[in-house]
């Protein structure tokens, strides 16, 4: 048993913290958001330079074959500094979805060098967060396929050049690669409260390339999404840690009734509960990340448990950080409200608490 980072992982964590402190300092969030496009472009360029985009791509796919713990080391820094990056969708989720198929080689090379971005459309209207609910229809054979249907939500997909989507062939759920500028594809783009940019897709006879074996995609999709979830868990932990640290600073310095408000016992106890929630969340993040290699049924159970519990802990810490800051916590001028907003969105990304509690209870029913 070992919960320590290796030297290489510590270097990854250090460089994530440097990148965050350099490009996304917490002191003036609103000013940074005015320069959102410029800063996210510089963030992506630095990530490419540091090799992070190549890191999660398997060696057989031409990448560095980094581990989930390597990704965790980066993602805690992303969370700590609230870097609004599409890294998880683009560099973790998509490479796991298309891994092993030569038809995706160009895409993976482009993702790895940072010359193109990709995202995954896996959720549909009426399906909730169920990855197995696929009504989008694929017709064709060999390399000639057309897709018709809808993808309700594509996490971090607003600026993607490529989409990997699920669709049903006669054989069942399959994965396809679609160009963002393909005829028949309508991309609606949205901004969330945490500044992440997402998409919704309408596909009307869109030309697509089959990835992997037709009808056999769901287990691969589930594993890839579980990897993305683990990256998000680490991000949530980093954000919780930063929100707690800022709150402890505030409790020590803010004075009311002539004393530091941190001297009030009720607030001390709240801060303690936040600290416990962080400890719990970090434990679950480690446990899920270290369980990604288990057989599917066990892996699903652990990842869903962690997703549900980290979501609850993250919301608790985010909400109490705002509460203990009082009015300035609700203002957007401090970093605190931005941490809460990210926690709210991390909680729904790739499935809410309710979805994952249900998946925890009945993995063999909800899984493929």
């Amino acid at each position: 048993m070992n919960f320590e980072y290796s030297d290489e992982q510590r270097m990854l964590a250090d460089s994530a913290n440097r990148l965050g402190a350099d490009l996304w300092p917490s002191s003036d969030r609103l000013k940074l958001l005015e320069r959102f496009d410029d800063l996210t472009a510089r963030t992506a360029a630095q990530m490419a330079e540091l090799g992070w985009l190549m890191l999660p791509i398997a060696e057989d796919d031409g990448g560095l074959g980094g581990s989930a713990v390597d990704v965790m080391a980066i993602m805690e820094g992303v969370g700590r500094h609230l870097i609004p990056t599409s890294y998880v969708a683009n560099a973790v989720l998509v490479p796991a979805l298309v891994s092993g198929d030569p038809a995706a080689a160009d895409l993976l090379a482009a993702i790895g060098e940072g010359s193109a971005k990709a995202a995954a459309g896996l959720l549909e209207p009426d399906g909730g967060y169920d990855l197995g609910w696929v009504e989008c229809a694929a017709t064709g054979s060999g390399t000639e396929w057309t897709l018709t249907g809808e993808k309700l939500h594509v996490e971090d997909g607003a600026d993607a050049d490529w989409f990997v989507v699920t669709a049903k062939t006669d054989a069942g759920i399959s994965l396809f690669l679609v160009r963002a500028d393909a005829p028949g594809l309508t991309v609606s783009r949205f901004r969330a409260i945490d500044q992440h940019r997402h998409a919704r897709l309408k596909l009307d006879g869109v030309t697509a390339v089959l990835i992997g074996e037709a009808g056999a995609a769901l287990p691969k999709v589930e594993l890839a999404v579980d990897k993305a979830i683990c990256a998000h868990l680490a991000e949530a932990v980093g954000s919780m840690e930063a929100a707690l640290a800022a709150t402890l600073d505030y409790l020590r310095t803010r004075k009311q009734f002539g004393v530091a408000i941190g001297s009030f016992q009720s607030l001390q106890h709240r801060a303690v509960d936040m600290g416990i929630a962080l400890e719990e969340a970090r434990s679950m993040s480690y446990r899920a990340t270290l369980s990604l290699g288990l057989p599917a049924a066990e892996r699903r159970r652990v990842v869903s448990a962690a997703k549900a519990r980290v979501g609850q802990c993250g919301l608790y810490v985010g909400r109490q950080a705002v509460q203990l800051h009082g009015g300035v916590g609700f203002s957007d001028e401090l970093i605190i409200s931005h941490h809460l907003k990210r926690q709210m969105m991390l909680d729904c990304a790739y499935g809410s608490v309710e979805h994952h509690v249900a998946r925890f209870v009945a993995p063999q029913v909800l899984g493929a």
Partner: protein
Amino acid sequence: MDLDFTPAELAFRDEVRAFFAKTVPAEWLTRVRAGLRLEPAELIAYQKALAAKGWGAPTWPVEYGGPGWTPAQNYIFESESARAGAPIQFHQGLELIGPIIFTYGSQELKDRYLPGIINADDWWCQGYSEPGAGSDLASLRTTAVRDGDHYVLNGQKMWTSYAQVASHMFVLARTSQEPKRQQGISLLLVDMKTPGIAIRKIETMDEKYTTNEVFLDDVRVPVTNLVGTEGKGWEYGKVLLDRERMVCSATAIHLPQVLDGVRDAARARKIGGVPLIETPAFAAQLAQLEIEAMALETMVLRLLADLASGADSGPRGSMVKLRWSDLYQRATALWMDALGPEAAHFRALEGEGPADMPYGMQGALYSRVTSIYGGSSEIQHNIIARRALGL
């Protein structure tokens, strides 16, 4: 003991119901249900419609323009308002400064300001909190120095909601330095057009423009705009704070509107082909909120009955505020759950967004401030410990 309304009260209910049916536009509904304030122009139009009916100030005495309703009628009015999807009346003039003016103000102040509140010709904002004086309001530092027929105000106010649209502000300021911090504070009525007032918007996490910092730089206020006695403002201010908690009773009566919003969102969304509202886990969560809302509603009814009999409600206003803010936060969080993955589609970068966005989401964000403003939950707990439990 009974829960029944008299025939006269039932007739009154029908009249109120008919009024709301023709007064409340459908386009307010989602925002009202999300617990969000309407735009100032909409709130002014609504207040004017109420005033034209003689219902502009439901809780005021008849001599100052109130309708002379019993607490039961006030409850019927608010619950019908909630049922119809009407907003809560904007309270800073009606519930906060109006009652202080008619209780402690001079005849001149009553004549000048009360009609403007009822008819929405004036819009009042509250100049209380300061950067260093939030929960600890008595540490406020804004000064009002007498100079002939004027007070000269200097200082900085914070969390001044709607200062950007207000015509007037009621301000707590120090008129003398006394050993006890609660002494030497006076309540002044300030015309927002007076030279020396500057406003800075505060960006808030719900992305809605509500609140401001207000800078007071040699602002000259006629001494006739002093409310009551110089140096006694803290006592009036405390009455105001108590009244602000009472406003929560009306807010609590409107809580079922939020649950209506959650229910509609959950009907519209399907999970695995089944409407979300029919899934056992979601139905149980909604039922839990409805049960707690029923308890809260009954607490409010008992509070109103105490008011009617002139009994001291003690800290039950604080209890209502605590329970309401908790339920509102949990209800809007459930609304966000009901939005599913589309909760992430807050603003369309081009074209149209989802139908009930961003309001459900904005309600979930806005709800976080309700356990902070008007006496934070921590302060409310202190009040209950001291006043109800004797600790």
